[in-house]
């Protein structure tokens, strides 16, 4: 990315005189960016505006009229208590922590074994995971529901957590790709020094795997935090077991047109995502394009 920037700077310097074509291109370029960003931001900004309005303002002014006080937080506190978001954030946080820990361990261990050892069934396991990615998730829940019922895992946090811990093919391949860059001589010399394979994985390879782990944590984290369908299906006690995504759904029904509250709820729910995005923008992009490699 940086390299390209430098290149273009160089090319600008090379072409000292600005041709009219270049000016037109610059105009088109920035116009399209401004236009697209305007559309991308408009729906969110309109929510921020409405969330800051008092009840009277909301009733009397147009939705796009700026609020008298941008920092009016009454709607936020109201939405927070009404949707039971304290419990929701706690549950989501708990789910996130355990699922991320579990899936990181499970995924990296599986990738370690698949990458480092040749054994009958190695290819089969890879194919099983690749094929599983083709199965449509929501469609499968018809029969997963029956299994969850018979295992008494419905309406329990741990049931949902266990379900979410499974490795998906994408994170497996991100780990495998990263393992391929770690020389096997590393394992060999450690083994000759008397380390067990488990120790090699835990003490030597896992710390080196950090970039891949970060990428997967972010991708999986975003996925789990935003997951709605299964949370709604399997965590049926909505007061006690709501997640952030399902708690938002309380705003349908009788509250369906209280948009000043709804918008406040929406903004609260996307704040954690916004914070993570601002901090890890680069890793998130890497994660998204890493997924492309294996398609």
């Amino acid at each position, binding site marked *: 990315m940086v*390299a*390209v*920037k430098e*290149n273009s*700077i160089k*090319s600008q310097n090379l072409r000292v005189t600005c041709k009219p074509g270049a000016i037109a291109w610059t105009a088109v*370029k920035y116009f399209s*960016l401004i236009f*697209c*960003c305007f559309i*991308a*931001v*408009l*729906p969110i900004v*309109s929510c921020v505006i409405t969330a800051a309005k008092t009840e009277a303002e909301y009733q009397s002014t*147009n*939705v*796009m009229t700026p609020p008298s006080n941008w920092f009016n937080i009454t709607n936020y506190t109201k939405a927070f208590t009404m949707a039971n978001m304290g419990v929701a954030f706690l549950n989501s946080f708990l789910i996130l922590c355990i699922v991320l820990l579990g899936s990181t361990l499970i*995924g990296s261990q*599986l990738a370690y*074994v698949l990458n480092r*050892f040749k054994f009958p069934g190695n290819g089969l*396991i890879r194919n*099983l995971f690749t094929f*599983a990615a083709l*199965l*449509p998730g*929501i*469609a*499968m*829940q*018809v029969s*997963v*529901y029956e*299994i969850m019922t018979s295992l008494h895992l419905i309406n329990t946090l741990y049931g949902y957590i266990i*379900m979410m811990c*499974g*490795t998906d093919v994408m994170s497996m391949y991100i780990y495998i790709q990263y393992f391929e860059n770690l020389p096997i001589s590393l394992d060999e010399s450690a083994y000759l020094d008397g380390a067990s*394979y*488990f120790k090699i*994985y835990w003490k030597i390879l896992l710390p080196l795997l950090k970039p891949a782990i970060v990428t997967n944590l972010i991708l999986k984290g*975003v996925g789990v*935090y*935003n997951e*709605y369908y299964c949370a709604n299906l399997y965590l049926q006690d909505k007061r006690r077991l709501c997640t*952030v*995504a399902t708690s*938002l759904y309380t705003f349908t029904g009788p509250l369906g047109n209280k*948009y000043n509250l709804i*918008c406040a709820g929406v903004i609260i729910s996307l704040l954690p995502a*916004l914070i993570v*995005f601002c901090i890890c*923008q680069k890793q*998130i*992009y890497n994660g*998204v*394009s890493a*997924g*492309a490699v294996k*398609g």
Partner: protein
Amino acid sequence: MTKKKLGSRQRQQLTVIFAFTVIPLFLLILFTYYPFCKMVQFSFYNMKYIGPRKFIGLRNYIQVFKRDDIIRTMLLSLYYMAGSVVQIGLALYIATVFCFKVKAENLWKGFLFFPYMINGIAIGFIFKFFYTRGFVLDTVLQALGFDLNNLPYWLKDQAINNWSLVFSSVWRYLGSTMVLFLGAMMSVDTTLYEAAAMDGANKWQTFKHIILPSIKTIVTLNIILSITGSLSAFEPPYVITSGANGTGTFFVVMNDIAHTSQKVGLASAMAVFLLVVIFIAKMLQDLLFKYIFRNVNADDESHEAKKRHKKTALERGV
């Protein structure tokens, strides 16, 4: 001596292989393959979650092609397919823009990408609000000189409501598709861009000869994925319109059949049908790639040649 040592090493290997694969495989079988087999089995029965089951052969599958509401959803997916083609085109254009010099690159990218981070329910509410009569979209259009009376009801008018939903999906995924393409474009040797600029290649030539070949594979892949993706569209209609006014997609109708009317057999048959479609798309993809890969390899070689040529030319020039 060595033999014995090798034996212990092998035993250790086997232990670690077993220990590290047993949990992921167990989860995979429990939550993917076992339900998959069950689903295929269910699809031949007339059943609810609880109660008696009756084997009815292929009648569920015949229903899938006979029920009007299900056939409608397949036609509906064409909207989403059109949407994803637009999305791919637009993402391609914006990614190309980013390939050339842009000021405040990360800021633009951040704005475009952020919708991808929002959960589907929140997006549903945002767009319910956005499309409500006299609210955000109508206000903006009125500011542009449209008369409110001439504007349709974005979510009720059957002529337009599916496009409204498709737009929300494009809004959500445009940024991520763009980042995906940009990643592929950047994987090209960056000296190529430099060389092209030095040779005075214009933007179109740069796009056609350097950018396009690098992303041909991923664009094709995305177009094929949009076939299955459009059949799997779920969240926009589910949250924004609850599938009312003719917006129920395949999954929305299936969800309803499975969990509201509890016709588990029929829902399973629908799922199996979707799977068959996915397989066909997958085969199509493999087939296409066999041909494209040949071309890509040829292209790569010509690129290499060009690059070498340019490098030598440069050196000579210096």
